[in-house]
């Protein structure tokens, strides 16, 4: 690392990985419940497990993004972080709010709004916390020696993420209106500004790892985030199709959603081409593996599997079925979890000065987790397609269908076990590095 304050990132990465582990545990609770094994029902009913699982995902990914920003922004701006103390306060506060929220879910304290279940009073604390984070990042950029495109795109993504949280905090009596603006948050995050964050992190990693000229990488970064917004903003329409809106959203959502995979294809081609162009001399092959992996798996999970059920004629039947879970798992894994993993894999040797990369453990962590995720996606896909044909086309009652597709959840739980082994290895590797130290500072 080049600046002492980059060490802050470590604590964000550590917190992110711990919360991810907890997220997986709640995933298992749901997988077993789908198989009829719901022994925890009295303590952790399905809706609690579900809200905990998805909110932990959001929280740990945001912590990962914040950690990435605390590592990247000082290095790009060539200055120490504006306030490391504020960063630590902001991390601890974020974790406390997160723990209260998750705890609250176990005592029926929440809002039943998919992905935004955190109760309203805590929403305000989240906003204050994210503002403190943004203040720290912006002040660092401001006092920095240079403002790079990579840093600007990453910061823009983070800033829009904070602003877009607000439409989700307004109360509407009309359920459709509430849902409409809820997607302003959820869709424009994951299929909009989070892709800016992903693009920013990806560009930073490619610049560092491939050695390709910054100007070339940043030029393509603009093209890719341009494609993302070109398709993704109006692509929000695919969430509106059937919630009580004018029918023009069917074709607007359909056309622009069909374009969304091209942004991800662009991202994948961009990463692969930069790797090909590059010198291939960087020793941290683990970071490279996760970087290219994120670009490719996100194209498949978010791009291809999203497109598979996004057209209105198909979505009429798949909307609200396990087909969505199929797409959701691989999309979040490829686009966001893997890019955070790439960032951690790149940062850890630099933060600690130890070189635990490119070992059997790191290779197994990558392949086992990805094979597990492919298995999970397949199991969700099989269950979802069976559900669509039985329930939506043949007209078999919901619960009868659920009993018939239970066996797919055995495959899901087995694949999730494989996935968890991969994640376990990754976390083991993370701890092999130990804590960051000033001895790892490199002077230019």
């Amino acid at each position, binding site marked *: 690392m080049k600046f002492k304050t980059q060490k802050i990132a470590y604590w964000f990465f550590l917190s992110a990985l711990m919360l991810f582990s907890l997220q997986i545990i709640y995933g298992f609770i749901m997988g077993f*419940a789908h198989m009829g094994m719901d022994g925890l029902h009295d303590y952790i009913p399905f809706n609690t497990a579900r809200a905990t699982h998805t909110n932990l995902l959001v929280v740990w990914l945001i912590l990962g993004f914040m950690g990435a920003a605390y590592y990247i922004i000082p290095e790009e701006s060539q200055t120490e972080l504006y306030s490391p103390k504020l960063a630590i306060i902001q991390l601890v506060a974020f974790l406390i709010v997160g723990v209260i929220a998750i705890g609250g879910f176990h005592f029926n304290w*929440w*809002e039943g709004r998919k992905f935004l279940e955190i109760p309203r009073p805590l929403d305000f604390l989240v906003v204050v916390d994210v503002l403190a984070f943004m203040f720290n990042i912006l002040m660092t950029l401001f006092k920095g020696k240079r403002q790079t495109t990579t840093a600007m795109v990453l910061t823009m993504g983070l800033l829009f993420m904070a602003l877009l949280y607000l439409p989700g905090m307004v109360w509407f009596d009309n359920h459709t209106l509430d849902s*409409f603006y809820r997607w302003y948050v959820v869709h424009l995050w994951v299929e909009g500004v989070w892709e800016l964050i992903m693009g920013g992190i990806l560009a930073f990693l490619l610049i560092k790892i491939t050695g390709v000229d910054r100007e070339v990488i940043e030029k393509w970064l603009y093209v890719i985030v341009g494609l993302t917004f070109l398709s993704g903003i109006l692509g929000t329409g695919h969430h509106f199709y*059937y919630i009580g809106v*004018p*029918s023009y959203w069917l074709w*607007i959502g359909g056309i622009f959603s069909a374009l969304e995979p091209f942004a991800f294809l662009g991202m994948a081609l961009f990463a692969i081409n930069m790797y090909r162009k590059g010198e291939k001399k960087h020793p941290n092959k683990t970071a490279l593996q996760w970087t290219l992996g994120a670009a490719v798996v996100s194209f498949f999970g978010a791009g291809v599997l999203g497109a598979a059920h996004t057209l209105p004629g198909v979505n009429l039947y798949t*909307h*609200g079925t396990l087909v969505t879970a199929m797409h959701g798992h691989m999309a979040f894994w490829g686009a966001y979890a893997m890019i955070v993993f790439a960032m951690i894999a790149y940062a850890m040797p630099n933060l600690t000065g130890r070189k635990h990369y490119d070992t059997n453990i790191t290779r197994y962590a990558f392949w086992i987790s990805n094979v597990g995720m492919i298995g999970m996606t397949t199991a969700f896909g099989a269950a979802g397609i069976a559900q669509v044909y039985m329930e939506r086309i043949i007209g078999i009652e919901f619960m009868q269908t659920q009993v018939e597709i239970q066996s797919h959840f055995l495959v899901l739980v087995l694949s999730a076990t494989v996935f968890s082994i991969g994640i376990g290895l990754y976390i083991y590797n993370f701890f092999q590095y130990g804590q960051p130290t000033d001895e790892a500072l490199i002077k230019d």
Partner: protein
Amino acid sequence: MLTKSQAKLFFLAGTIIFSLIFLALSYDTTVNQLDEITHAENLSEEAIKGRIIWDENNCMGCHTLLGEGAYYAPELTKVVERRGAGYIKGALMSPTPWGEHTSGRKMVAYGFSEEEANSLVAFFTWIGEIETNGFPAKPAYEVEKIDTEVE
């Protein structure tokens, strides 16, 4: 060949143009059309109370409504039409987990009061009348379960 500043222009112009189109369409939807499509005039106090109960208990954590939510329990958009108010109230007011003795998949035993159950039914009734561009699609077939178990 594309230069970096052209790429930047593509990004900025594209983002601004499509954001403006999106905002304009959102305005048209929410201000001009939504009330009519959702029959907002029928949104009674009782239905709003039902919506609050729906929210406060995170029913979307298991069920889907307008296809949105989790995939553990039945879709409820047309539940009033499909099951009738009596059945729904039975599930909502039950002191023991609904489904325990039938499918085996349990619903949380909320044990709602009659008034609360009526509010939720009013909410579901309002939801059921929203014009949803054809969702949920009517199945192409009607099947009956044949019990093959031998006594």
